[in-house]
């Protein structure tokens, strides 16, 4: 399986993603934001970080970068495109995904483990996964998902919710919502479910000595779905 991770100036989870993808069997390439063409890929990842410093709205500069046209083309033709954290913000800025990521409810950067309940039906990211509650790590200042009521209706009608913040038993409640995200949304798909944006970082949880090992569950499942 071939994957590509796009590096924007200010990306800082690019290496972590590279390490994780390779660990679980991807042949990964790093792609510079000023390139115009993506290599042939089964998966393209927009990693976390602070692209272009995020001095404007998070992800908005990256959504106008040189590489982004071919990323959009790749996704529109059905390719798997995943944005984690800042990558998710970039995906909403390019409007490949609906909604926006606002400043966290308590206006603070949050770095901690959270539980998410994932949607494992009819998508290549989570189908066949052996656990549907994952403990992953978040680290962001703007992860508060927001969209219009029309958009939310579409999201629900098309089963586009990819992951919801929950407690360790899988219950979706206010207490488990770290950032004020609408309906506890931690990640969403596009309608066709080939594009995934989510705030939690599976790449930081790939062995038991780290904050947890559920990222391994995610990547193992992902590559076996693609084979």
């Amino acid at each position: 399986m071939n994957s590509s991770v796009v590096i924007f100036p200010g990306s800082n989870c690019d290496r972590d993603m590279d390490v994780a993808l390779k660990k679980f069997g991807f042949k990964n390439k790093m792609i510079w934001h000023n390139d115009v063409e993506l290599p042939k890929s089964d998966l393209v990842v927009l990693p976390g970080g602070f692209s272009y410093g995020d001095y404007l709205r998070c992800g908005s500069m990256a959504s106008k970068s040189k590489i982004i046209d071919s990323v959009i083309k790749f996704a529109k033709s059905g390719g798997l495109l995943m944005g984690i954290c800042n990558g998710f913000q970039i995906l909403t800025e390019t409007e490949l995904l609906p909604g926006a990521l606002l400043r966290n409810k308590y206006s603070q950067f949050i770095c901690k483990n959270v539980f998410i309940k994932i949607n494992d039906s009819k998508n290549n990211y989570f189908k066949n996964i052996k656990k549907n509650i994952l403990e992953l790590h978040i680290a962001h200042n703007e992860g508060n998902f927001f969209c219009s009521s029309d958009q939310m209706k579409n999201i629900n009608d098309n089963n586009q919710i990819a992951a919801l913040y929950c407690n360790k038993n899988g219950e979706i409640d206010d207490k488990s919502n770290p950032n004020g995200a609408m309906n506890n949304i931690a990640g969403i798909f596009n309608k066709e479910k080939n594009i995934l944006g989510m705030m939690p970082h599976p790449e930081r949880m790939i062995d038991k000595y780290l904050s947890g090992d559920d990222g391994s569950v995610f990547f193992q499942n992902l590559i076996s779905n693609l084979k």
Partner: protein
Amino acid sequence: MQVNESIAIEHGLSKIEYKKICDLLKRTPNITELGIFSAMWNEHCSYKSSRLHLKNLPTKGKKVIQGPGENAGVIDIGDDDAIVFKIESHNHPSFIEPYQGAATGVGGIMRDVFTMGARPIANLNSIHFGSPQHKKTKNLLRGVVRGIGGYGNCIGVPTIGGQTCFDESYNGNILVNAMTLGLVKKNKIFYSKAAGINKPVIYVGSKTGRDGIHGASMASAIFDEKIEEKKPTVQVGDPFTEKLLLEACLELMAGESIIAIQDMGAAGLTSSSIEMASKGKLGIELNLNKVPCRELNMTPYEIMLSESQERMLIVLENGKEKEAKKIFDKWNLDFSVIGKTTNSKKIELFYDEKKVADIPVDTLVENSPMYDRKWKKTKLQKKNKLNKDNFKSLKILNVLNKLLSNPNICSKEWIWEQYDHTVMGDTIQKPGSDAGIVRVHGTNKAVAASVDSSASYCYAHPLTGGKQVVCESWRNLISVGAEPIAITNCLNFGNPEKEENMGEFVECVQGIGEASKYLNFPVVSGNVSFYNQTKEKGIKPTPSIGGIGLIKNYKDMITMDFKKTDNIVLVIGKTEGYLDQSIFSRDILRVKTGPPPEINLFNEKNNGQTVLNLIKKKLVRSAHDVSLGGILVAVSKMCIKGKKGLEIKKPKQLINQFEYMFSEDQGRFIVEIEKENYKQVREILEKNSVHYDELGIVLHKDIVIDEKTKVSIDDLIQSNNNWLKKYMDT
């Protein structure tokens, strides 16, 4: 502008110093030259009050590659890997503008580390605030935490540990000490020593603005009512540019084109260029018209003294300019050849084709003032005699709950949850542990780091306090299973021109020196921050010690959480029941006098090495050092982390239970061991003449002291976790 004595005094120079400048130059300096002298000769850059005493610190060791004097210290961790690390203060700017002050403190220390070719792999910090009741404390804390996070999170370097203290002596002068560790290959370390003449001198990074002019001089001034007016001299940080600068520098360093490199920190272009020339025994000629400026009509004086952030100065091999420029263009950073090395041993500056400064380098460095300031020894106070009446009204569990929610002991989760502590994917012990640990990427090795201070001990008796901080750092590293290697120190003190404050400095340094020498735990880098003073009142003497240790196989690291019920819990080291200067005495009994607990370096070393030996033999399941709050606070934290309880059987001793549980005798650890290993552990302890007490047995929940005295772990968690969150929310 014609320079005279009063202008020199406005620049923070003394009359005698001004006369010395005129004598050295054999003429009156012009304003640019005066600015350069004032920047190089102020306390922050010249260490004029401290140099004499710092010389006595042990700085060498088998694993030391680079001691003090470079941008940071470097230690050998085997297999061609080395760790570059340093701690530095950014106290004064953080009090004036907490967000930017703290942010640029983090930025500055990271630059010191990657200047040497190392990729930063972990940040830590030691922050001290005034009393929680003081009107400024909350906002300062919030701003500083945001600033530290805002910079470190954006760069993508995990903040893996630190400490936060509150004490009224910091009401008017907070402390923000930032520490960074970087990883480098031993044969790819870069230094600031220029070599060769006619080599191009390159400016890279951000443009130069008017921010931070005379920042280093501000750091050497005493705060007064007008301090808010100093806001414009606080630098503004741009972590995004620093991230680009980091990547660009490391890319350039992969090649062979750099001769010397130095970041522009305190006193900006002045100190960086002079440092490179001085170390290389060369001269430097700069054309200031070539310096990329952010603002129009900047004068040579402003260009030389600006402390704009995220800038570097590089001496390149001839002919490598094009190759280097390509890299900085890729990262969208300014790149300008601004001068060359010369054999004049002078710093010569040109602006609009006129020479605007011409100063022999040695007058700025070797001939800078050095003072043997008067200092006063601190007398050892009389011990307090406590009797039964002192304890009569106290209930042990009430005391425990009070201590667990004490601002200096409570959980600092509210703080470190705002720091990205997991980016880079190698953090295996996060903040809230005895030491933070990161793996050496792609290897089995891991590096542990801890930062400690004990201002109350240092205030009561600086010599003992100085020793104690080093010992605590050593114990924290051992508690996670790391072999302690070396330390960096950030020495925060009051006004060195006052005998008491200078005495505190001299004796703390002496204590640090004695302990680090005895423990073979050398000081490889550091910084001194004097004038932490508001009007007449100085802070408590506060040396922060950053310790580094190595774990050969990260899978063998130890955490502090109790692991399994029925395991045996031991106290290693002798408990004499020494209460003076303990947090129990100070905050519960309200007795603030008396000497701090004594340090017995033999016991420290013997106990520590024996615990490390037990860990290496895989006989220890969890470990924690006993410090603030004594035994009961230490085991409570282990219970809280492991969500387990403990049945305590107080050993039969002559001392009462408060003395046993809350005394802060030094050289002690708590360890958890399996029953079947007890015999072997005992033999090892006895063979090494290490005193130990059998404290109790790990339970499912509840801490049980006797039938009537027990408390659930959930209650303890509440006490420990809630104080800071509540404080910040109200």
